[in-house]
């Protein structure tokens, strides 16, 4: 098998991995519809006053731009693979 025939397959595989990683990562971190968050708030209660107060902790919550960038990259890789497939001479 030649290098040119391996490349489209590699690109298709990469497109699949990137697309799944972007979608899976976005879903796994809560399918957040806004921009990416690098911290989240947890409410705790002060026992004496009964006040709920926010405690901010570092956390990565993927936003829609992460999903969009991942899907765009996957689409680009898939399109390149398709382009290379079509350019390949018949029987190569």
């Amino acid at each position, binding site marked *: 098998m030649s290098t040119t025939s391996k490349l489209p397959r590699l690109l298709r595989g990469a497109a699949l991995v990137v697309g799944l990683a972007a979608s899976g990562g976005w879903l796994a971190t809560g399918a957040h519809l806004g921009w990416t968050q690098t911290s989240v708030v947890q409410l705790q209660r*002060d026992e004496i006053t009964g006040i709920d107060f926010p405690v901010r902790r570092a956390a990565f919550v993927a936003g829609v731009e992460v999903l969009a960038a991942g899907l765009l990259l996957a689409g680009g890789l898939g399109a390149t693979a398709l382009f290379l497939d079509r350019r390949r001479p018949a029987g190569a």
Partner: protein
Amino acid sequence: MTTSSLRSSLSVAVALGATALAASAAPLAFDFKDPKGVNNVQFSLDAPLESITGTGTGISGTVTFDPAAPAKTSGKIVLEAATLTVGNPMMTDHLRGNNWLDVAQHPAITFEAVSLANVRNQGPQILADVKGKLTVKGVTKDVTVPVSFTHLPDKLGARVGDPKVKGDLLVMRASFAINRSDYGIQPGKNTDKVAETIQLTLSIAGAAKKG
């Protein structure tokens, strides 16, 4: 004991009693600078394309509150605008930047109580509509905010973890909404992503030391 000395002792006792009564009924000045970092404001904006939620914790101010006459409550609460934070660092920078809140030029968001109306009791809480002046980004507007007051006598020691510290706590809670265009915050711009209406929830506790 002669009649005159008895009369004099009685006078002293009455005077002391009256002083004690006056002291217990006197308005208390509650300091809302909170070393525990519990005092907070939470804000949310729900625009068609994006919901934004955030918090602010730099709260200070003083409120004078008399449990026997809550309608006479007065005071001022200050929020350090640079403590307003959302989950995305770039968005936090934009929020604090000169296009939005411009915290460098307008470091404080303040609410000054002018009068209380519709004061009523609900269990241990006192509810009231507080009329006052809210200043955001240098623009001051008259607003009416529904506030609940909870007076916690002799709870300061428990809160600071030192029973020797004597004093009361006053918890204030309020939820209300403002329009950002009223305060010159990018009026009419980006309303698809940054809602015009800002929902605010304030939960704060102040301390009045005794002795």
